[in-house]
């Protein structure tokens, strides 16, 4: 078991972003999490990443052969988390040092190659295109070889080439040792890769199915059901 969440609640003032959510993800699973805006998906990822503290409930991370340390978590957020005034290589080297990666220079160079950015390693990040930044962001998240990767809308702003590269990289992570929790609005991309589908709505999980034999229409119907319900309630308010 990689991740276990029990009765998790997160409040911001009077707003309840996560409401009694319980979830268990096995090691090596690739899980896609869908949901309308404001469903609490990003909050859930931040809680798992340790960036937020739960109001109540517990989150435990455990991987085979390792302790429950947060150093095994990689996180890709809406923002790139990169320093625009540093080069691509300097960014990766800096984060390698923070994570205590062995041989940070070699590791940073290899990661640039893996992300197809070896030619742009000495270029300042502020000169990167959106797609290049997103690839470097993923490289940053993978630098320390995390066992659990949390991806928050990684496809946003990518062109077709960037999309293909990202999908290829994510597919390479389906090796049984990496656990991935992908948050996306894009059903096609989310369903293509995942073993399991979750839909979150108003801070709770309303749908949880294995993706084996699962049609896009079924997920679409469940997703739209949640969104429409949300819209109806919003209008009635």
């Amino acid at each position, binding site marked *: 078991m990689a991740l276990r969440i029990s009765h998790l609640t997160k409040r911001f003032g009077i707003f309840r972003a996560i409401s009694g959510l319980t979830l268990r993800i096995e090691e090596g699973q690739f899980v896609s999490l869908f949901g309308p805006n404001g469903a609490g998906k990003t909050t859930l990822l931040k809680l798992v990443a340790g*960036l*937020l503290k739960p109001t109540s409930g517990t989150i435990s991370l455990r991987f085979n052969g390792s302790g429950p340390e947060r150093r095994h978590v990689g996180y890709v*957020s809406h923002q790139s988390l*990169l320093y*625009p*005034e540093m080069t691509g290589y300097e960014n990766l080297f800096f*984060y390698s040092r923070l*994570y205590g990666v062995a041989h940070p220079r070699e590791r940073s160079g290899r990661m640039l190659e893996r992300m197809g950015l070896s030619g742009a390693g000495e270029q300042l990040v502020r000169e990167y295109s959106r797609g290049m930044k997103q690839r470097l962001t993923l490289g940053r998240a993978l630098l320390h070889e995390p066992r659990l990767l949390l991806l928050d809308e990684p496809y946003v702003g990518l062109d077709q080439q960037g999309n293909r590269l990202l999908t290829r990289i994510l597919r390479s992570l389906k090796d049984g040792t990496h656990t991935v929790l992908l948050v996306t609005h894009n059903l096609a991309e989310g369903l293509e890769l995942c073993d399991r589908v979750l839909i979150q709505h108003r801070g709770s999980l309303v749908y949880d199915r294995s993706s084996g034999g699962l049609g896009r229409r079924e997920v679409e119907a469940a997703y739209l059901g949640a969104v429409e319900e949300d819209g109806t309630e919003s209008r009635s308010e």
Partner: protein
Amino acid sequence: MSPTRRLLDGLGLIWTLAEKDLRIELRSRQAFYTTLFFSFLILMVFNFAFDAANQDMRKAAPGILPGILWVALIFPGVIQLNRSFQSEREDGTLLGILLSPMDRGLIFLGKFLANWIFLVAVNLVTLAIFMAVYNFPLTSSTPWMLLLILLASLGFSAVGTLFGAMVSSIRTREVLLPILLFPIVIPVILAAVNGSTEVLLAENFRFLFQWIKILVAFDVIFLAASYLVFEYVVEES
């Protein structure tokens, strides 16, 4: 892991963070020139206002020159302290640092070290300008002045880094930081001005060591307290 190894690793992480900030600043030198120009302007304005280089004026009001010097050394430092966390918040890079498994107190120490080195560099140039404009030659007591600058800027940076982090997510941070910071650092300013009066004008150093002791005590207390509370300051609610 042995305590020595942990200490060395911690120091390495602190330097990694500080070196990153200094590298970015060295690349643009934006804050350095802005802060230095502000200090220069203060020295010039007071020079024209008080004719402070006049010997009679110095005898009549011996505390005025050290007062001018410390206004020029301390006030412009707020520019850097405001920028220190603001840029990390704007680029989202603070999240990147917080995601790493390093102790959050070390993040404070890294940011503090960068701010301290920055302020000492600006202060040394400001002191040189002060000595040229107000006609103070280098004497055997100049090293004492350098010690006062090191100690005062240390305490100022420690409190300023903590408060800079506190206000960095608030819209009115530019106004709020000096309002919060200056009342707290009054002991630093008092000790620095009085110590400098002895160094610059008086021949005997009767009370100098008392002022130095106050500065050392302030530095130790506020550096330790800031290190301990930093985790709660950067935590998202």
